[in-house]
């Protein structure tokens, strides 16, 4: 499956592309809307802060392009900050910064009193059955680095939670739009498993 990994200057994407290739995909880095054509999956990675990331996406003409591919039903995967960007807005850095608005909901700082960033291994608590989380071990550890988390308007999009001070969505899925708050590319075999599950599910869907 051709995978377009959106490269908007958000750091080292080599481990992300490597993980997607290991999961059976054919990833390529794309820097503009033209690169999205023909992709069976569009991945929005991300480290860093929300507002600069949105500025760079906008400058690259990617905000409308990503909204359009999602509307057209092309599967989209947001990773870490990339998952947060899929939502309506974030208050990171003060004020409200508009996100991609592909999923309904907001991004808010992790609760006061807990150590931020939330950095390290933590467990997934599966909220509902989904092909992405099929066959996970118990406990299922994945690797997080983040200070903000999403608050979906519809909690039914949450496939798995994790807890750091309070419960927050670790995996969301609405139709073909999926978000991982953790870094699958740093989450060892389980991260590989989750990506492989996702790609297998998309391939099965494409074959129908």
């Amino acid at each position, binding site marked *: 499956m051709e995978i377009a990994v959106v490269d908007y200057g958000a750091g080292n994407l080599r*481990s992300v592309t490597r993980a997607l290739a290991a999961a059976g995909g054919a990833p390529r880095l794309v820097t503009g809307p033209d690169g999205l054509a023909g992709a069976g999956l569009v991945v929005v990675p991300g480290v860093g802060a929300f507002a600069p990331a949105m500025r760079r996406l906008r400058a690259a003409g990617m905000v409308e392009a990503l909204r359009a591919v999602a509307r057209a039903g092309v599967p989209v995967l947001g990773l870490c900050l990339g998952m947060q960007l899929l939502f309506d807005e974030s208050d990171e850095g003060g004020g409200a910064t508009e996100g991609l608005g592909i999923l309904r909901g907001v991004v808010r700082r992790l609760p006061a009193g807990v150590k931020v960033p939330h950095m390290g*291994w933590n467990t997934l608590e599966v909220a509902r059955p989904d092909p992405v989380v099929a066959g996970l071990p118990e406990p299922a550890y994945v690797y997080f680095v983040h200070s903000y988390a999403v608050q979906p308007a519809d909690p039914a999009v949450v496939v798995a939670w994790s807890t750091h001070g309070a419960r927050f969505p670790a995996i969301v899925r609405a139709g073909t739009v999926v978000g991982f708050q953790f870094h699958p*590319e740093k989450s060892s075999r389980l991260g590989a498993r989750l990506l492989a599950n996702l790609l297998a599910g998309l391939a099965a869907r494409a074959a129908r």
Partner: protein
Amino acid sequence: MIVYAAIDLRRGRAVRLRQGDFAREDVFADDPVAVAQRWAAEGAPWLHVVDLDGALAGAPRHLDVIGRICRAVAIPVQAGGGLRRLEDVEAVLAAGAARAVLGTGALAGPLVRESVRRFGDRIAVALDARRGAVAVRGWQAVTDVPVLEAARRVVAAGAPRLIYTDVARDGMLVGPDLEGLVALVRAVAVPVVLAGGVTTLDDIRAADAAGAEGVVVGRALYDGRLRLADVVRLPGVR
């Protein structure tokens, strides 16, 4: 980016070696516990404690000192050096270490798998390299195992975190091996902590940009070239 202040233990004292050479040792303090308290007071988020005598001997030699350090500071401590048996891993964790760092013993045999099964994320594996090959037994010997291959092996065995050191740079204040770090970050799907040669704030920024989860800072702290107060003010550092 997590910054670890290093404390290397030899004959009960806090020392720094150059390039892992036991003949080129500088004693920085007779009381490693006082050093730990100083780094903690200056804002170190973590301590990285290596039992050098233990690494040479293949069994811990400073469990008592490690225990006293862990009791003396409120910050978490990762500790290693000579952990080649599950009992020793358990002992260093029981002494109060938040994380046990496996070295030599992790390359062969079931230690990584067994330790991770027992202790999960409280395990890290140190990969110490000389010219791209793994160095063992307190860095006194170099194997013919390439670092990347060793990394893949220990990650396949379950290692949840790697600590990568280019021995040639350790204690030399020449900057860390960012190329080796990048290769490692690409090769394995677990977080990697960078050690060896970290000297400036720019080294730490570069390590962050290259994908390191953290850096271990040693001699530069002891020499006063890096101040923890400045380090922990870097964006994203804790």
